[in-house]
């Protein structure tokens, strides 16, 4: 306890709320409020309606939602595969090799996502790899961007892993592949799970690289929100944004329930 007087404590809390509520709580509430209204010219929105959601779960927007879901799931699966493979391989290396591999896989975080988008666009619009115009180029860019997070979270978990289990298994004659499959991966399951949730959320909200390279028939939700608000339909855009936030939260919740199950096993 840092502030001892009662009045001082209340003053501190009041100051906290005064900063916290307008900066962090209001923005999210405002989007939700706007998604249920047709007009906002006073303190509060007016014209309550659910028509925005009608537009947000139909036609173009529904297609954008499925596009985003497919992209995010595909990117998360690829990212988990390569990220954890690299983390496991890095853990087997000596110190210098491990450091180099970790740095290499964290590099996409430092490179601006717009530049990742530009680079992927430049590289895969020419032979021998012609992916431009296909959904695969979006999936590829998202995978590049989220692999770093999968790698980071899995390699942090590997460091905390108790080596006794695998040593016991190996001393009982288990082959390396068997130890990996039956001992290490099950022990890493909670962190793989967390990494999957993180990758999914990041890919769902990815806008920068996607703006550089999405083909017209593969438009994810964030791009859809941008085109809606750019046209001036702010309220439809908010409804689509609420759908995006809701879907992300639902999947994160489902993943974290899976995680508690996995850690109890």
């Amino acid at each position: 306890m840092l502030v001892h007087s009662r009045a001082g404590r209340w003053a501190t809390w009041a100051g906290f709320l005064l900063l916290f509520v307008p900066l962090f709580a209001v923005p999210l509430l405002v989007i939700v409020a706007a998604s249920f209204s047709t007009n906002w010219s006073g303190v509060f929105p007016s014209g309550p309606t659910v028509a925005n959601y009608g537009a947000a779960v139909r036609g173009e927007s529904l297609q954008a939602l499925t596009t985003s879901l497919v992209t995010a799931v595909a990117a998360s699966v690829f990212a988990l595969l390569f990220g954890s493979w690299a983390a496991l391989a890095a853990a087997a290396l000596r110190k210098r090799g491990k450091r180099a591999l970790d740095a290499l896989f964290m590099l996409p975080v430092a490179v601006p996502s717009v530049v990742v988008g530009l680079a992927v666009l430049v590289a895969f619009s020419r032979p021998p790899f012609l992916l431009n115009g296909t959904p695969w180029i979006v999936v590829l860019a998202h995978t590049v961007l989220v692999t770093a997070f999968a790698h980071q979270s899995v390699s942090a978990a590997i460091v905390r892993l108790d080596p006794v289990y695998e040593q016991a298994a190996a001393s009982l004659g288990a082959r390396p592949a068997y130890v990996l499959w039956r001992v290490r991966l099950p022990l890493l399951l909670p962190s793989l799970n967390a990494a999957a949730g993180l990758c999914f959320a990041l890919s769902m909200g990815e806008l920068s690289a996607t703006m550089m390279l999405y083909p017209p028939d593969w438009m994810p939700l964030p791009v859809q929100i941008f085109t809606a608000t750019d046209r001036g339909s702010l309220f439809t855009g908010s409804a689509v944004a609420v759908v995006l936030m809701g879907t992300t939260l639902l999947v994160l919740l489902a993943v974290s329930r899976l995680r508690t199950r996995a850690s109890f096993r």
Partner: protein
Amino acid sequence: MPSTGADPKAVPTELESGSAGTDRATSQAGTVAAPGRGFSGQGPRPRGVPAWVWALPPVAVLALVFLYPLALVVQQSFTTDSGDVSLAPYGDVFASEAFRSALGTTVWLALGATAGCLVLGFALALVIAFVPFPGGKAVAKFIDVFLSFPSFLITLALLFVYGSVGMANGMWTGVTGASEGPFDFLTTPWGVLLAEITYFTPFVMRPLLAAFSQIDTSQLEVASSLGARTGRIVRQVILPEALPALAAGGSLVLVLCLNEFGIVLFTGAKGVTTLPMLVYSKAILESDYPAACVVAVVNVAISVGLYGIYRVVSRRAGA
């Protein structure tokens, strides 16, 4: 000792495997390619490929989808429209007013947002950690959720709060009867700054809260029983402990702000052009790929350089 491969680096020396088991580095070194190396004396050692071979497939994939494209961007930035290799694209871009102003805007916005995030994040984390209140846990949870949303939502929300017909201006016109409100900063750099501070402050708060939970509260009690006032305790006890976390969080936010695109795009202001925005408009709107690649190379150089500093700082901080 049977060698498992040609590369001596991948095989722990006899000495190391002798001291194994307790040594984490050694036991890690033996786990994927050849588990049981820690027990070098027992049983037949499995003859596998050396450890570095297992690192090759993911590195090859990364090289194909990330390093090769980046190399092409660098190559294109040195190529003129007619296909000659020259420094001309750099000269053209560096001479242009748009690039210089974008560079200036990007740097001051990133520095300003980082400073704002550090001050705000430190203050808020201080209250959550040391002046606990009911619901503090929920606030910390809320911050985690906040981090999983995309950044452009903040700009979208600010349009309703401070936009020309939003909440704040509506309140003003309702109270004073004026025809329009005083808030008109969203399409200026200040609007971007506000959005960036809002979105990135949680990135500072998370490592800070982790660092604060390590501080022994009895230290604070001792300091205050010796007569130190709150300000002095914060300055002389808490701040020194929090410095590594502040440095790590601050440099991460600096890099992320330099690379931020969604917030600037949603602001839709012609007056606010940052480097990522310039890359986008050169490449997609003007189809001027050499210029876009030059700006991209400059942006990558700044960000990766700063990110290197972040890695060093956060490793020192143990975060």
